[in-house]
């Protein structure tokens, strides 16, 4: 009696799952296409190379050179990565190879807490701690910009925001190394450090590269914490103490304002599209590396 009802419910359930799947899978394309559609007016009037590599940002005069923003983004995220690499690697090695159980448990809890902190709080912390610190360094280095709001401050803050994310990946990687491989190496008379350096790090090297690539991608897209400390000046930064203006900050600060300027909307949409493409490329590369490494296992 209930057969047909159950049948339809079953069918409904299935189609509901398929529909959600299709929506999720198509989201990146839909976002990309709508951004492309909106940035089209600028793309047809100005060659793309000129938009990317020109430093001339004068929206009121119709000049939309995005290079200062792209360059700031690259520098800030690379700085963040450079600062983050030694800390995350050292901590991951310590937590997985040397720390007694209880310390390793405490550290993991701290990392999880860090990972859960909203990035606006990291931004505030940057303003009250990092910016004054950088300002002092800038003063003693006789830098033109001594305010402390700089790409260095942004680099430090972005390193902190991405640190827990990367560290968790690294810890998982180190733990994926079988204990017996470690024992086999030690049994040949290698010291603990030789084992880590020559065998464990070598074994998971592709994974480490992938983890840092994903970290870089996250740093590239970090918005609020960065825009709070980076200074937001449209220029090509000439030192690490100079202010910068990364792409996400451009979008967050300006979208919705001055929209009467012709093609301004298009320029912002284009920078959003570029941000999206760059981040997707980073993630794609990281997954390629992981796949390559899994096939070799």
């Amino acid at each position, binding site marked *: 009696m209930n057969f047909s009802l159950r049948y339809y419910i079953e069918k409904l359930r299935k189609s509901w799952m398929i529909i959600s799947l299709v929506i999720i899978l198509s989201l990146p394309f839909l976002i990309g296409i709508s951004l492309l559609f909106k940035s089209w007016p600028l793309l047809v009037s100005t060659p793309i190379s000129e938009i990317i590599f020109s430093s001339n940002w004068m929206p009121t005069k119709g000049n939309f050179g995005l290079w200062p923003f792209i360059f700031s983004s690259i520098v800030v995220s690379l700085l963040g990565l450079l600062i983050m690499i030694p800390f995350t690697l050292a901590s991951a090695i310590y937590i997985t190879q040397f720390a007694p159980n209880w310390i390793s448990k405490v550290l993991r809890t701290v990392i999880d807490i860090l990972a859960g902190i909203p990035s606006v709080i990291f931004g505030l912390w940057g303003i009250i701690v990092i910016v004054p610190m950088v300002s002092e360094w800038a003063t003693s280095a006789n830098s033109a910009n001594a305010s402390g709001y700089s790409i260095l401050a942004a680099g430090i803050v972005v390193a902190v925001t991405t640190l827990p994310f990367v560290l968790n990946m690294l810890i998982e990687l180190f733990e994926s190394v079988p204990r017996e491989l470690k*024992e*086999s190496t*030690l049994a*040949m*008379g*290698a*010291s603990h450090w030789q084992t880590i350096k020559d*065998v464990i790090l070598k074994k998971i090297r592709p994974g480490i590269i992938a983890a840092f690539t994903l970290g870089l991608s996250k740093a590239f897209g970090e918005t609020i914490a960065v825009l709070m400390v980076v200074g937001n000046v449209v220029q090509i930064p000439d030192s690490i103490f100079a202010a910068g203006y990364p792409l996400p900050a451009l979008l967050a600060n300006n979208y919705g304002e001055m929209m009467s300027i012709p093609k301004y909307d298009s320029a912002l949409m284009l920078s959003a599209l570029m941000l999206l493409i760059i981040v997707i490329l980073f993630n794609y590369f990281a997954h390629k590396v992981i796949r390559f490494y899994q096939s070799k*296992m």
Partner: protein
Amino acid sequence: MSLENNTSLIDEEIIRKDESKGLHNLIYVKDLSLWHGKQQTLKNVELNIRDKGITVLLGPSGCGKTTLLKTFNRLTDLDPDIKTTGSIFFEDKDILTKNIDVYALRQKMGLLSQRPHPLPGTISDNIRYALKLKGIKSKVEQDDRIEYYIKKVALWDEVKDRLKYSANSLSIGQQQRLCLARGLAIEPRVILADEPTSALDPISSRKIEEQFQELSKEFAIVLVTHILRQAKRLADYTAFMYYGEVVEKGKPSDLFENPKTEIFKDYLQVGH
């Protein structure tokens, strides 16, 4: 090392008995107990390991065979919860004392584990790393020895054209022989083998067993196994372990024909 030094450490009586039987022992385990936290895994183990020949540690899973094996090269150090009492004498020293050079000790005790664990890198890298640890820096000599040890484990014909391939590209049986070659390259006195055929197919197992019979002319081999047939095929001397104790030990001819304890009788029964 002088003889006085020797006898002060190891029971004089044992050595005299050994010599009267024409035996030469390499490792003497004296009253060894081991705790894993609060749980005792080894109970007053007394055992001699012969030089040249295969000593089989036989027993059911979880009886402490592997733990005993790992005390020989101090891999037990990795676990801070492990505490030991008693002594293991090897080359005139008690290797359980603190002031032992564990790296040198481990180079005298080559380990072959249950599953092969090739190092990341190529087939020749695997042996090259062992040679580097041994202090051999010359590339030419390394290459010579790589060939020598791969030939020694009868793997050369199978891999000579692909030494630069990843060691993971080998079959699991070949990987195990590569690991054996790697262990031999550190020039050990003793080969510690922890159920080395348990992950292998019968043909690969047989190859490893043949290797062991050959190698037992040069090395002292301690073989951990729970396979009765394997013990019978290979053992020159057998110790049967049960719940952390060495219950019976002796030459296989005596031991397997005349089991003294009920536990061992049962094990022999079930094993057949």
